[in-house]
């Protein structure tokens, strides 16, 4: 075990994966010599050479398109999109190509690529450095979508994603790169070194894609969360003195329906939280699944606390962000229904 930030854990996952499989190549904007604007690939080029980790032109379509071609050759590209907000130029290559190649060729070709990207807000990035586009991937058959919330999971899930035979969209909430941010932006920053999930096993390990994790056990209500909001939900529960069970979904597709159903059947109440805009966000799918499977266990409507249906604002970031006050208030309201 080593205490690591999430950035260090991601870097370590790359190292382990590249060490154990020389088909793994890493590229993207500024990821080579410089090691990425968030430094997640720092040291890779030095250690593995510029034929394993290299810089690319600023072309997200090119990055993913080339990765699909490389995967068809037999490599395992793990590429970085500098910010999730900039993935849209690559959207066609992800949804029409990476996600489809195996199916349309009946397994003749496949696209085992990982598309990593920092996601979410909370860093005063304004509308183009703050988005959470995960829902846009979950609607696309053939893609797996992972959102990590801590260094321990980030390393294990990234190794699993690179080893996975299918394309994986891997979202890294940038606000938890350096610590378990709970939404209290006005309090001192807590580093990962102070948090048990900052303890990262050395060497190779992987976490199964498709398995949720109970982040906090509880019996009053269930919170379905992922990424940064896991920590926000925990803080809200503690501040409100509510015995909430917080589930960290970790993988959105495939979804760990059993873990969800088990918890909601136990608590009878469900709160869904995410940073992405509300309408047609992944929270909608969670509501649909929970009511389909647990309607007669529900004592109150499932509530969603999400980003508003506006672009992510700069100055009003904390009015947009679903912080512990909004989440806590929804918990109280949910319990009083």
């Amino acid at each position: 075990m080593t205490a690591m930030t999430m950035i260090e854990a991601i870097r370590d996952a790359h190292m382990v994966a590249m060490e154990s499989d020389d088909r793994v190549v890493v590229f993207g904007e500024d990821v080579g010599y410089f090691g990425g604007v968030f430094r997640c690939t720092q040291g890779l080029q030095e250690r593995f050479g510029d034929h394993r980790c290299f810089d690319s032109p600023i072309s997200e379509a090119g990055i993913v398109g080339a990765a699909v071609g490389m995967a068809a050759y037999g490599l395992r590209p793990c590429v970085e999109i500098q910010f999730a907000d900039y993935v849209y130029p690559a959207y066609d290559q992800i949804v029409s190509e990476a996600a489809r190649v195996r199916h349309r060729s009946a397994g003749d070709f496949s696209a085992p690529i990982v598309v990593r990207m920092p996601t979410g807000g909370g860093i005063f990035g304004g509308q183009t450095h703050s988005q959470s586009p995960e829902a846009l991937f979950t609607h696309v058959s053939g893609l797996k979508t992972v959102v990590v919330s801590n260094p321990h999971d980030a390393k294990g899930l990234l190794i699993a994603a690179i080893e996975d035979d299918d394309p994986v969209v891997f979202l890294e909430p940038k606000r938890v790169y350096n610590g378990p941010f709970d939404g209290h932006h006005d309090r001192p920053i807590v580093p990962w070194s102070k948090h048990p999930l900052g303890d990262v096993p050395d060497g190779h390990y992987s976490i199964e894609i498709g398995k949720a994790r109970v982040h906090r056990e509880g019996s009053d209500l269930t919170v379905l969360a992922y990424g940064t909001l896991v920590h926000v939900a925990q803080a809200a529960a503690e501040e409100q003195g509510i015995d909430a069970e917080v589930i960290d979904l970790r993988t959105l597709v495939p979804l760990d329906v059993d873990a969800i159903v088990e918890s909601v059947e136990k608590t009878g109440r469900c709160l869904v939280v995410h940073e992405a805009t509300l309408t047609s966000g992944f929270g909608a799918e969670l509501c649909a699944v929970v009511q389909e499977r647990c309607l007669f266990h529900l004592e109150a409507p499932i509530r969603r606390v999400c980003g508003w249906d506006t672009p992510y604002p700069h100055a009003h970031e904390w009015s947009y962000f679903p912080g512990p006050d909004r989440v806590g208030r929804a918990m109280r309201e949910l319990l009083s229904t």
Partner: protein
Amino acid sequence: MTTDRDDTDQPLRLRIPEPARGQHAPDRVRYISAAGEMQKPALDEKVERVALMRKQLVRVLDDEGRAVGDWAPDISVDEKRRGLRNMMLVRSYDARLLRAHRQGKTSFYMQSLGEEAIACGQQQALLPGDMHFPTYRQQGLLISADYPLVTMMNQVLSNEHDPLHGRQLPVMYSSKAHGFFTISGNLATQYIQAVGWAMASALRGGTEIAAAWIGEGATAESDFHAALVFASTYQAPVILNIVNNHWAISTPEDFARGASATFADRGYGFSIPAIRVDGNDYLAVYAASQWAAERARKNLGPTLIEWITLRVGAHSTSDDPSVYRPPEETEQFPLGDPIQRLRQHLEFLDEWDEERHVALQAEVDTQVNEAFAEADSHGSVKTGDVGSARTMFDDVFAELPRHLREQRDRVEELS
């Protein structure tokens, strides 16, 4: 800022390229060189010098069927006859499947009538292990690589023997073993993938090269740019083919080409050597492909080739070109028919004659008809012989996840 606008400012006006029908001469090939006129540059010739050829056209076969000039390739008569046979097979195959569509046996078809030399000739110049990233008009690649006709037909009929389990629209073949990447319905996406594949070969110290294929209309798509940027930056071992058949459904090439003289010009924007080649001249196709392949294999980087040809038929079976197309276009097309031209060459060499040609025609037609009879015996999407709907859920992922298992169960309940 200067503060006033000149009163004499003329109102601006947009240039909208003319529709082809009625406005252009039906012969729209720009810059035709004589056979043998163009020199063949050294493999590592400076791109600036190759650029001087951007308004020329590599041609080998002259009007008498002679193979003339620097570019005349050194291939045996047997290889030439093989090329002729492949092209005739493609044409016969197309005709049979077009008929199958008319007979209501398939939902859709796309032929390559008039463009057969390009795919057949390039395939002959490449090696097993190389990978094509084709569009829907390169059936010649598969046929020239001896992919079984009946398997292709099963795909077109979407029957139980279709290796793609009826998932794809007819003609969207895939065969890794035959160096043929799974066709996408989305234009241009494969172009950058080909560059990525070639990059992978180079990253791994391989010896295999890639060939990217695109229609002239689809060069307007953005993925074409991504491909050129990556190919230029990393000097990937890839052949960048642009098939200029003058049409993109109803849209004449002018809309994609804009003010450029040629599509080969696009390469020069990236210092990628680019040549224009008579795509209806099998020997020119072979020679240019061979040259580009050799450059790639010698690590000299990408080559762009604009193939000049004509889409003789409709865009697809869903299209009726009579609305937008000058009727006399095919006759007036100055580059002739690729099969006739190679035949004439072999006759000129005294290696071919009417009798043999008729016999070969009969042979390929029989081969096609027999294959079709076999494929047809497995039924088609139209007869409902489409295998199990279960298969729809396979290959979405390498392993079937729970939600798809549940959905598959539901389909079974229903049927």
